[in-house]
Every structure is written in C-alpha cells, then in structure tokens.
C-alpha cells in the first residue's frame, strides 16, 4: 500500500468537480486504524450532517448533494442511516443533473416504504417521466427499476408500456423502459396490464437499434413464460434476428461486436427466448433455425480469431446456449450427437470453466435417447475427471455425469469408481454419492449378490453417510428376493467379523441374521451360537435403537435355533436388560423373556414367522434423492436429515407397532413421548394383537405395557392415555380440570370376544380422603360388556382441600365364569388443580424469598431416567400444570415455574425450579409452596417424571 498519508492514497479532486469534502471524509475513514475509530469518525460526521440539515441556513444544492452522498457512503459501509431521506427527495427536483442523479441513487439504495416519502418520490419521478428530457427520463426509469417495489408498480406500471412503444421515445429511453417494465412485471405481474402494446413489444425484435433489441428480448422472454400463446409470433422474429447475427461477419455489427464475436449477449438472449417454446412448426422457420444452430457448431471448430479469453468466452457462451436449445428440443439426433462431440472436446480443455460447463451440459445430454450412447463414449474421461480434478465443484459435476450416463452396460464400472471416489470424497458430498451408488446398484443389479456387496461396501466405506433409507432398502430387497438371502446372511456374517464395524452394519447384520441366519447355520463356522456371540459382542457398543433391534434378533434366534434359548434367556434376564434405564430396552427384554418362557414352540414360530415380502413401491432412496433438488444438486446436503415417513422397514421389525386393539380414546397414547429420538424404532408398547391369541385363557394375565404404577406416574403430566391394559381389558382415560373441578371419562374396552359379566367399576376413597376430594359417578356403566365393545363412565371431581394420596378405582367382573378384580390408582393428583401463573422475574424472586421457611421448601437431587431433552422437559412441566417462566433464571438451562393450586378450602401458591446437569445426568428440583406437605408431595411426583 503506497504511503499512509491522506494525499498519497486519495485521488486529487479538483474544485470544479466538487465534493472535496466527500473525498476527505472517505480518506479519513480509510485511515481509521480500528473499527472503533471508524465508528467515532462516522458518528462525528453524522452529527455534523444532522446539524447542517437542521440548521437555520438553507443549504444550497451542492451541499445537500455532498451530504446526501456522504450518508450514502456511510450506509454502504454497513451502518444504519435514519435521516436524510427528505433532503434526497429534494434533490430529485433539482434542475442540476448531478444533484438529481445523487438524489435518485440515494433513493434507489435506501428507499423504504415510508408512505409520505413515497408520494413525494413518485411525484418527482412522474415529473421526470413527463419532462421529455431523455436523460431525466432514463434516470427516473432506472430508479423505478432499481426499487421495483409494488408501490412503484402501482404508480407507474400503466405508464411505462406507453413510453416503451411510443414512436417518439428515444432509443435509450425504450431500453430503460423495457427493463424497468420487466422488473415491475417480475415483482407484481398483476399490475402490468396486457394490451395493445404487447404486439408492438414483440416487434421490437426487429428494431434497428441493437441495444433496444437486447433490452426488449429480456422483457419478451419473461412475458412469454407466463403467456406463451400470446407471444408466439416472437419465434419467427427471434429466429430471423438470430440468423442475421450468426451469419454476419465479425465486423458487421460494429460496436455490438465483442472481441470478434457478433452480439454475444443478444445471441444468448435470443437462444434463451427460443427455449420457451417447442421447435418452430413452420418448416421454413425451423430450417432457418437449424441452419443457425449448425453454423454455431461449425464456428466452434474454426480457429479462434483472438487469443483473448473474452473471445473464447463469448463464442462459447453462444455455443453452450445453442446446445441448451438443442437439448431442449431433443428432436434432432444429428445435432445432439454433434453437441455431444463438441462437449467431449471441452472435457479435456485446459480451462477449468469449460470443463465444468461441459460436464454439466453433458449431464442433460445423457438423458436424451439420441445422445445417451454418445455421452457414454466419454466415460473414461469423466472417471478421470472424478479422480484428478482439483476443484471439488468440478468433481461434483463429474459424479453427477457418471450417475446420469449409467445404464446396465456400465453400471458395475461406474459403481465401483464411485465407491472408490467415496473413500476420499469431500464430506459435503458423501451422502449424495452414497444415495446415488445405492440407487444405481439397485436399478442395474443383474444379480442381487452384487447389490448386497455394494451396499455393504457403502456402509464399510462411509457408514456415517448411509442414511436409514439406504439400509432399510437393502433389507426390503433381501426380504423380497429369496435367491439372495443365503448370500446376504453369509456376507453380513463375514462383514461383522471386522473388529470395528459401523453400527449400520450391526443393524443390517442383526436384522438379516435374525431373519435368515438359519441359511448359514449348517456351517460350523457360523453355527447359531457363533452367530449369536458375534452379534452380542457388538451389543454394548451400540446405541439404544440398535440394541433394541438386536433384542428382536435374539428372540428370533430363540425361534430359529432352540439351542440358543438358554443363553439368550440368560442375556435377557440380566439386570442390565430387565432393569434397563431405557424403557424401550427394558420392555423388550421383559416381553421377549416372557414370550420365550411362556409360549409353546408352535406359538413362537407363528409370532416370529419370517417377514412377509414388502409391497413394491418407489424406492425410498430415490424419493430422498429427488427431494434433494434433482441429480444436479450438490450443495443441499445439510437439509432434511431424516424423513420419519419412510420408517417402513423399521415398522416391520416388530410384528405390529400398534398398541391399541380396541377403539379407544387413547390417540394421545404417546403424548409424553411425542418426540422420540430420531432413530428409535416405533415403540412396541406391546405386541398386543398377536399375543391376545397366544395367551388364550384367563390363567395368565401379565400386564402388557407399563405396570399400573408406571402408567399412573405417566398421568402426572398428562390427562389422556391408557391407564391399564392386559389381555382382557384396556382402560383409557380422558380428563380435564379447571380451578378446583375436574371431569374424567373412563373407557373400558373388552379386548376378548367373550362378554364380561357383572362388570362393576367403583371409585374408592381410602381413609378420610372423601373430605379432601369428592368423586361422583354421573354415568354408570352396564353390567355386561360385549366382546370387542367399549363402555364409558364419567366422573365429576371436586377438590375440597389439598390431598396426598389418589382415589382408587376398583374394577370387578366375571370373564368366562372366572371372577376378575383389579384395583388401580386413579390419575387424580394434586397438581391437576394447578392454575399456571405468569409473573415477572422480580415478582418471582420476591415470592421465592417470602417462602423461605425450611418446611416450605422441598428439594430433591436425582438421576435422569430419561434422555435430558429440553423440549420434553418443558412439555412435562407444562403438563404438570405450572406456568413456565422464561428469563427468570440467569442460567438458561434451568426451568422455573409458578402456579396456584386451587382447592375449595384454600389456595396454595407454588414455585418451582428444575436445574438439569447434563454432564452428570442429574437434576435438582426445588419446590416452594405455602403448605409444607404440598411442597414435598409435588416434589415427589415431579421428580419421577424425569
């Protein structure tokens, strides 16, 4: 940087040119050593300008221009400007061109929809448009085009077409009017009235002035896209214009020749216009056009007229646009093949830009039946590009092209090259490559063992990038094709031998061995115990979702290989499974263990029968790739991670993901678990439907799903769901509470096909509970409940004073002559009568201090039983009934809540604070209420929720 002093780096400004002050200010800013210094200098200037604008002395135009220009400079530096608009508007009506010009520039850059100002601006524009001074008219049109707002459209959209086609408009005005109209039309097409002018606009294609044509083509192209039929006449005009340009000598067009290329911008625009339409119907027009396209292709073979890159860029810009049109028509085999050959030459050009464009353009050529074969001849060059290009965006294009040119004849080569590339591919594009390989492998698989190998290779090379869709799909295909099942089992078994294999491999391996492990069990090297211990050796390193899948594999093993039963039961029985902190795993362990010990071999074989074939439908992988902006997309890899709707295979891992066998109000069954971790399989809250048949007879009645106590606890934070379920009966609950009152609907579903007799549900108030809470049955249920039927009971609830124990529900009935009875806690807890209370931080702290007696506070520190998820925690706290107060706790990780418990006799104010410690997986919960037992009770209840 030559010299640090002001004069050395500032262009000398003569007095005549004015705005020396601006130059001084700019160089001051440039000399600022720090951001702070710059801001200081700017603030000083802003203060100065403000005082000048507010001052008593009227400013002359020059000063106004200078200050407005300074403000503009400050704004363009990235600072906010909140004044000066009025002065800029004043400049618009100046007679001095430079002042007007600065005014317009300021307005173009800084306009806001300040209505008062807009009216003044529009007025000034109107005057200039009517001035008949072309220079002023152009300035006004530029301003409208630059702002392009709806307000501008409303004010001028009707006038501009008139200016555009008026016989006496100057060429430069027509040009500005055309593009100004284009901008307004793009922003608000409804404001631009179609009419007589549109026909005349099309004829601007014949205008003598090339600049007018250049501007008009853009407008016409845009109009064509929305109203193709109205502008059809432009086709023949465009073709003849293009023909004249293409056949002209390089000097004919004088100043519109650019580095020996005649009118490149206009040519490109005309070729774009033609891409709005199918090939011309008129044979003469079409012949002329084909001649043009051939001429362009011929010229590409001529030696360059200049060594300048501008020459070749301009020439090739036309060439690529010509090829686009040829591809768009997709009807001239000869031209398509010539285009392909031309692009083939560019594939090895020394200019990176040309290689990039050739790869991109060839990608679309590959999809044409006429040129597909021609494209394929370049496979080696493209593979080489994939390996050697130094620019990732070029490699991406090469990968796209390989994908596009792939067919049955070259699939193996292309897939293996892409797999090889994957090992070193940029992280940003790995997932897309994985998807593409998976699709090609499936689409062009002749023998499915190759397909299986390919997918397993994908997992091996880039396991992290293999999305669910991909490994689900391999399972679907293996399940549906019995010719590949044995091979798949053998291959996954071998793949799992690797000391470190990706978790996705464990998933695929677990599923396939669970289904088809028997096909390789004859080989002593992969005998059932070996298969099991191989899988189980991975178990402890896997995530919950994978472990859940493996547990399902284990139960399938018990069915496939009775000799593994004892070992597997031992694993299921282990405390780490049976009492696993994760409910999903615990439940599977409990249920599978019971299933394996209770069910007979026949029953087990029925339940765990091989999966039926999946219905054939569009590959979920293809759907995923399509969602990624089509095959050319390279950048969108970070969007849409997983699609929950495509959980199809996982749904199949469990016989039936549905828990509810009778119509019941338990749509909100999973209310509390509304947001399971993304990869978790659907909660198998019980393989209910099938088991009903298995456990025929009243003797065995293990409760399905959660224990009654667990179910009861789940209701602390929610009001609807299933309270109880066994093989015979399901009890659903729906309830609502307001103030100290509540209403509860109980739904009793008979899950059997036999009528229940003497059905009698009653509410029990243990101890003196009746003086604390009163429950009245308003709707009694009939004594008989038919098989498969559901009956409803309604309870009205009134909370009289605070209570600690819940009322009980006793249900008695006879099933097949045997008396049945059960007693459950009704999900009515004191927190149901919470009224959330919003309060400011200050109020909260004040009340918190007021409740500082030791007996008013209850605190619990406990370990997290569920994943520590802020959203779930919030939902639970809201479900608990208190208001959640944001911005109270200085630590944003913590939760603070407040509410009042409403009873008939008294109100109890409650404040709570929950402090998660993610690192220790612990919580600290503190409650303060005005009543000692309530604090403790609420604390107990709430602590069990996390």
């Amino acid at each position, binding site marked *: 940087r030559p010299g640090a002093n002001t004069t050395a*780096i*500032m*262009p000398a*400004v*003569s007095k*005549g*040119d004015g705005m020396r002050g601006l*130059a001084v200010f*700019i*160089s001051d800013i440039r000399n600022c050593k720090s951001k702070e210094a710059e801001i200081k200098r700017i603030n000083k200037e802003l203060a100065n300008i403000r005082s000048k604008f507010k001052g008593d002395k009227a400013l002359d135009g020059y000063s106004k221009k200078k200050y407005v220009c300074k403000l*503009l400079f400050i704004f*363009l530096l*990235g600072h906010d400007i909140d004044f000066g608009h009025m002065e800029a508007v004043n400049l618009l009506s100046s007679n001095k*061109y*430079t002042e007007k*010009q*600065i005014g317009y*520039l300021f307005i173009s850059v800084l306009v806001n929809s300040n209505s008062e100002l807009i009216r003044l601006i529009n007025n000034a524009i109107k005057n200039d448009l009517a001035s008949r001074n072309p*220079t002023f008219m*152009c300035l006004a*049109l*530029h301003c409208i*085009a630059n702002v*392009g*707002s709806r307000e501008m459209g409303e004010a001028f959209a009707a006038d501009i077409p008139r200016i555009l086609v008026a016989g006496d408009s100057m060429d*430069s005005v027509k*040009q*500005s009017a055309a*593009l*100004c109209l*284009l*901008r307004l039309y793009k*922003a608000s097409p409804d404001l631009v009235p179609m009419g007589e002018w549109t026909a005349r606009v099309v004829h601007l294609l014949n205008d003598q002035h*090339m*600049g007018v044509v*250049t*501007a008009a083509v853009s407008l016409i192209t845009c109009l064509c896209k929305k109203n193709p039929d109205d502008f059809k006449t432009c086709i023949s005009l465009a073709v003849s214009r293009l023909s004249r340009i293409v056949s002209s000598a390089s000097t004919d067009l004088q*100043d*519109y020749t650019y580095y020996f290329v005649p*009118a*490149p*911008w*206009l040519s490109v*625009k005309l070729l774009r216009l033609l891409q709005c339409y199918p090939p011309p119907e008129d044979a003469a027009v079409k012949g002329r056009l084909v001649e043009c396209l051939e001429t362009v292709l011929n010229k590409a073979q001529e030696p360059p007229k200049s060594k300048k890159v*501008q020459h070749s*860029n*301009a020439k090739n*810009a036309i060439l*690529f*646009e010509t090829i686009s049109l040829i591809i768009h028509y997709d009807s001239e085999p000869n031209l398509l093949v010539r285009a392909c050959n031309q692009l083939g030459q560019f594939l090895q050009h020394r200019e*990176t*830009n040309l290689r*990039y*464009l050739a790869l991109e353009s060839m990608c679309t050529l590959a999809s044409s039946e006429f040129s597909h074969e021609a494209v394929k001849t370049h496979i080696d060059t493209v593979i080489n590009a994939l390996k050697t290009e*130094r*620019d990732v*965006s070029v490699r991406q294009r090469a990968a796209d092209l390989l994908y596009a040119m792939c067919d049955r004849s070259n699939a193996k080569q292309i897939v293996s090259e892409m797999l090889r590339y994957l090992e070193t591919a940029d992280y940003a594009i790995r997932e897309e490559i994985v998807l593409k390989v998976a699709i090609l492998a499936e689409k062009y698989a002749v023998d499915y063992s190759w397909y299986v190998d390919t997918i397993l290779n994908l997992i091996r090379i880039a396991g992290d990038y293999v999305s669910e869709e991909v490994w689900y799909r391999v399972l679907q295909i293996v399940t549906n094709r019995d010719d590949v099942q044995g091979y798949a089992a053998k291959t996954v078994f071998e793949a799992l031998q690797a000391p470190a294999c990706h978790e996705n491999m464990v998933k695929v391996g677990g599923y396939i061995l669970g289904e088809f492990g028997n096909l390789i069990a004859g080989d002593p090297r992969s005998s059932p115990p070996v298969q099991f211990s191989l899988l189980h050796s991975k178990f402890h390193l896997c995530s919950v979702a994978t472990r859940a899948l493996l547990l399902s594999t284990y139960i399938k093993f018990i069915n496939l290989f009775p000799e593994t039963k004892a070992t597997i039961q031992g694993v299921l029985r282990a405390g780490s499974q049976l009492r696993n902190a994760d409910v999903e795993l615990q439940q599977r362990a409990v249920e599978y263990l019971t299933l394996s010990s209770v069910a007979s071999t026949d029953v087990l074989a029925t339940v765990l029968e091989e999966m039926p074939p999946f219905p054939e439908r569009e590959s979920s992988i293809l759907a995923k790739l399509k969602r990624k902006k089509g095959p050319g*997309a*390279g*950048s969108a890899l970070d969007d849409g991670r997983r699609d929950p709707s495509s959980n199809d295979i996982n749904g199949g891992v469990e016989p039936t993901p549905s828990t509810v066998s009778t119509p019941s109000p338990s749509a909100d069954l999973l209310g509390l678990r509304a947001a399971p971790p993304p990869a978790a399989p659907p909660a198998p809250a019980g393989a209910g439907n099938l088991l009903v048949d298995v456990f025929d007879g009243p003797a065995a009645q293990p409760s399905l799903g959660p224990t009654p106590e667990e179910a009861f606890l789940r209701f602390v934070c929610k009001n609807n769901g299933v309270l109880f379920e066994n093989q015979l009966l399901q009890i659903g609950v729906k309830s609502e509470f307001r103030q100290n009152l509540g209403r509860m609907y109980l739904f009793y579903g008979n899950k059997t096909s036999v009528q229940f007799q003497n059905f009698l549900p009653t509410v029990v108030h243990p101890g003196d509970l009746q003086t604390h809470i009163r429950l009245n049955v308003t709707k009694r249920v009939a004594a008989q409940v038919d098989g498969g039927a559901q009956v409803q009971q309604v309870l009205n609830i009134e909370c009289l004073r605070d209570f600690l124990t819940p009322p009980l529900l006793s249900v008695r009935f006879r099933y097949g002559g045997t008396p049945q009875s059960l007693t459950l806690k009704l999900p009515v807890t004191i927190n149901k009568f919470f009224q959330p209370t919003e309060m400011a931080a200050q109020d909260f702290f004040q009340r918190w201090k007021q409740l500082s007696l030791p007996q008013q506070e209850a605190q619990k520190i406990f370990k997290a039983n569920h994943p520590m998820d802020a959203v779930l925690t919030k939902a639970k706290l809201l479900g608990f009934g208190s208001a959640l107060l944001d911005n109270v706790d200085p630590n944003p990780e913590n939760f603070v809540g407040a509410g009042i418990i409403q009873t008939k006799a008294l109100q109890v104010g409650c404040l709570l604070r929950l402090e998660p410690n993610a690192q220790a997986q612990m919580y600290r919960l503190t409650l303060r209420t005005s009543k000692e037992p309530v604090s403790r009770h609420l604390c107990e209840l709430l602590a069990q929720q996390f």
Partner: protein
Amino acid sequence: MQVMLLFSRQGKLRLQKWYVPLPDKEKKKITTELVQTVLARKPKMCGFLEWRDLKIVYKTYASLYFCCATEDQDNELITLEIIHRYVELLDKCFGSVSELDIIFKFEKAYFILDEFLLGGEVQETSKKNVLTAIQQADLLQEKTESMCHGKSFIGCKKTY
C-alpha cells in the same frame, strides 16, 4: 442476475447492486456468506459454483473480486463477460480504473452500472453508447476533469 458484489481480497465490500428485493438484514447475511465462500476459493479454480439455489460467477481483477449471483438457467460464460464489459466501462470512464476510483467515486461506479445493466439484465452492450450516456450526463454538469489515478487493473497485477 440477482446481485452483483465487488469486494477486495480483504473482504471489504466496494459495491453492491441488488436486483431482487430483500430486507437489509438478509442482504448483509448473503453478502457475508458470499464473500467468505468466494474468498475461500483457491486460484485457478473454476469461476462458477453452486450456492443455495443460485449460481455464482466470479472473477478477480487485480485485488478486486467481481461476483455475480445468477439464476440457475443463466449462462455462466456470458455472465463472466458482463463482468468484463463492466470493468472495461469503468476503465474508460475513470481512465485506467483502480480500486481507489471505485472507493472514492463510488457514485459514478453505480451510474455506469445502471447504464449497462438494469433490473439484472443487460441493457446496452455497446461501449460507445454507454460512454455517450455517461458523457452526456457529464456535459450536463460542471466541467469534469479527468480522474486518472492509480494504475489500471485491466491486465495489471498491481494491488493497492
């Protein structure tokens, strides 16, 4: 074309022209991202890249980056030549233009651009016609002395 940005190797924005209506905050965000993306590219890399759903076309002249974001359908090579023609116009108007001219006479750089591109489309490709328009404007104002400072950055590697 949706936007044209001129910025220095240090990431200082020298000129910004938006052809789509966007809130200032969004403009700033896009600018920062674009500048970072383009500055991160190594020399000799391809002058085109995909960015969001747009195509970026850029080229450097001396220390100044000229960067255009265009729609997917737009012709990359002709966009490169739009950049070059603009540089030529600047060069003619300023007489061997340098980055300093664009800093100190930024308003003129905007005026020249408006004569050449309007609404994101090429309005007039003839150098002569654009210059005439600018000169006519100059004739309407007080006599302007030619501003010839710094070295041309066309074909010149000198940086400031």
